[in-house]
């Protein structure tokens, strides 16, 4: 089964849970933090599943409802990751990354950020458009978010954690210290000049 094919039975739904939801959940939990909103979606899934056994609701119907909540839990993971990625990008913008990888690093990063923003905008617009869903239970934005999420992880792993970023940070810090020293010396010289001119 792939995510393109909606599950109709419990085994198909649990396959999706074990091979998709749990992977994204693990990625968030790796930070030792759990967003409550994700837990609410998973609780809602469990509630729908229980209704098959307690109230005799149709298996395909509860599976469909639970599936949509699971996908929304994934969407939450994607959005949190996008936010974290953009924060990391802002950190990278504060340092001189122009020389990394013979100058290739910066344009490649910019290109990827552009792609992420475009993809995320498209996914968000689709999310807001309930008319494009075949019914209320569908989450059409899910498929659009997947490549955006992958690109976010690429930025975090290949760019933010790039081995030369530490070197660039040190270099930027050294340039700041040098600028501070030079401006202090110039201020002191100007101050001394003024004092001398005033005949002190």
């Amino acid at each position, binding site marked *: 089964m792939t*995510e393109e094919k909606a599950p109709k039975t419990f085994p198909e739904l649990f396959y999706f849970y*074990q*091979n*998709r939801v*749990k*992977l*994204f*959940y*693990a*990625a968030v*939990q*790796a930070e*030792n*933090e*759990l*967003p*409550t*909103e*994700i*837990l*609410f979606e998973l609780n809602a899934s469990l509630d729908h599943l229980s209704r098959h056994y307690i109230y005799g609701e149709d298996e395909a119907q509860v599976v469909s409802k639970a599936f949509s909540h699971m996908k929304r839990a994934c*969407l*939450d993971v994607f*959005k*949190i990751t996008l*936010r974290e990625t953009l924060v990391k990008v802002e950190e990278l913008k504060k340092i001189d990354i122009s020389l990394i990888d013979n100058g290739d690093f910066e344009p490649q990063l910019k290109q990827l950020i552009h792609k992420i923003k475009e993809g995320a905008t498209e996914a968000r617009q689709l999310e807001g458009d309930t008319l494009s869903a075949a019914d209320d239970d569908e989450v059409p934005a899910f498929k659009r978010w*997947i490549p955006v*999420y*992958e690109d976010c*992880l*690429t930025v*975090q*792993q290949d760019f933010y954690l790039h081995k030369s970023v530490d070197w660039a940070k040190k270099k930027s810090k050294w340039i700041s210290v040098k600028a501070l020293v030079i401006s202090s010396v110039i201020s002191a010289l100007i101050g001394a000049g003024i004092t001398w001119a005033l005949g002190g």
Partner: protein
Amino acid sequence: MTKTLIQRLERLTGQSHEEISQETLSAKRRRISQQKGKPMKFTRNYPLIGRGCVLGDNLRSTAELNREIDELLQLQG
């Protein structure tokens, strides 16, 4: 979902796809809390995510709840 994405998730979590799937959520929580040396924290990200969070900003840890229950039951002090 692409193979590359799975590999990136494996790199991020430090576990294989199989290991992530096999480990129970409570075992995962215990293991990561031990690794980080502090209990897992719940966060609230509304309105970035979620569809109306009733909890507001008053998220409370298990330790805080236990402390209050112990006080109510006069198990402390």
